[in-house]
């Protein structure tokens, strides 16, 4: 039993640096969600039910832009598709867990939780991986809910925050997240294709331009990958 408790604790402890790192984003999410017109309860409910930081951010910016529900759903799906990769990575180690535990760990499988679990998987293999994953996932979940609640409370206390340019906080965060990747030619071409399409299609209703731009960017990236492979094969 001690090993189980140790592993639970170790998971939560190893997730701690990432929990601290998400503090500002949880608070900014909660505040902007309320500024975008969601009730504090709805903002918190999104963290409780969806639990996907970047998708929640994007949904809030889509809501304030007047997007249609199917556009928000589809964008959420496209943005989160990478989590299927995480699911596939953890799956071989999860055979003996039982369906309920697998379903629970899947619910908590964000970028950060996956990063913590994967590191443990590399270092210690399958040894007490389930309690470790529960510690990391559960800790990270409670952490995200706490910062969201504080942010939503702030948004409610200071309704003027909406006019302070909180929409800016969102796009600055996105810009800072992608800029370090713009060293290689492929991501630059992806950004150019997506950005240009988004600009040209910005007049489309329901924010459909966003979906179009996302597909244009991904298509450009696939094309660049293809070109590089063809060049490597020729060399």
């Amino acid at each position, binding site marked *: 039993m001690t090993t189980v408790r140790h592993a639970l604790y170790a998971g939560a402890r190893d997730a701690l640096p990432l929990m601290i790192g998400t503090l500002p984003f949880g608070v900014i999410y909660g505040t902007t969600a309320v500024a975008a017109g969601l009730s504090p309860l709805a903002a918190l409910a*999104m963290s409780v039910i969806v639990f996907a930081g970047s998708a929640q951010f994007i949904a809030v910016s889509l809501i304030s832009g007047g997007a249609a529900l199917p556009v928000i759903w589809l964008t959420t799906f*496209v943005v989160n598709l990478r989590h299927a990769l995480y*699911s596939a990575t953890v799956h071989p180690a999860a055979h003996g867990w039982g369906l309920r535990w697998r379903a629970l760990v899947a619910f908590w499988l964000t970028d950060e939780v996956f990063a913590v679990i994967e590191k443990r998987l590399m270092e210690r293999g399958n040894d007490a991986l389930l309690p470790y994953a529960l510690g990391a996932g559960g800790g990270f979940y409670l952490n995200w809910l706490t910062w969201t609640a504080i942010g939503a409370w702030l948004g409610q206390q200071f309704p003027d925050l909406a006019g302070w340019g909180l929409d800016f906080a969102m796009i600055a965060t996105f810009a800072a997240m992608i800029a370090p990747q713009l060293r290689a030619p492929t991501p630059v071409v992806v950004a150019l294709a997506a950005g240009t399409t988004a600009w040209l299609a910005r007049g489309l209703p329901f924010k459909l331009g966003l979906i179009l731009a996302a597909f244009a960017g991904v298509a450009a990236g696939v094309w660049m990958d293809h070109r590089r492979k063809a060049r490597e094969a020729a060399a």
Partner: protein
Amino acid sequence: MTIAALLAGMFLATYLTRASFLVFGHRLRFPPALKAALHHVPVAVLTAIIVPEALAPGGQLDVSLGNPWLVGTVVAAVVARLSGHLLLSLAVSFAAFGLMRWW
């Protein structure tokens, strides 16, 4: 728009991706081409959100040093690219944005 529908759809869209292999694993295979394409999603989606908001914050094109959204976004990107430090670049860009709007 009802919050319940919004959250239910977002839950499904998120949970299905995470549960895919862990819950339905034995019957699934991840196509390598899709895996390669996914790699480009974050840059594509985030750029698509940033560009219209930074170039035309009020809906009107404004490519000038007087547009705090554009200047602040460029500052965030440049500092992040040079330092690789997310929170530092946010602090600097929020400061730049704040100065431009309320100085």
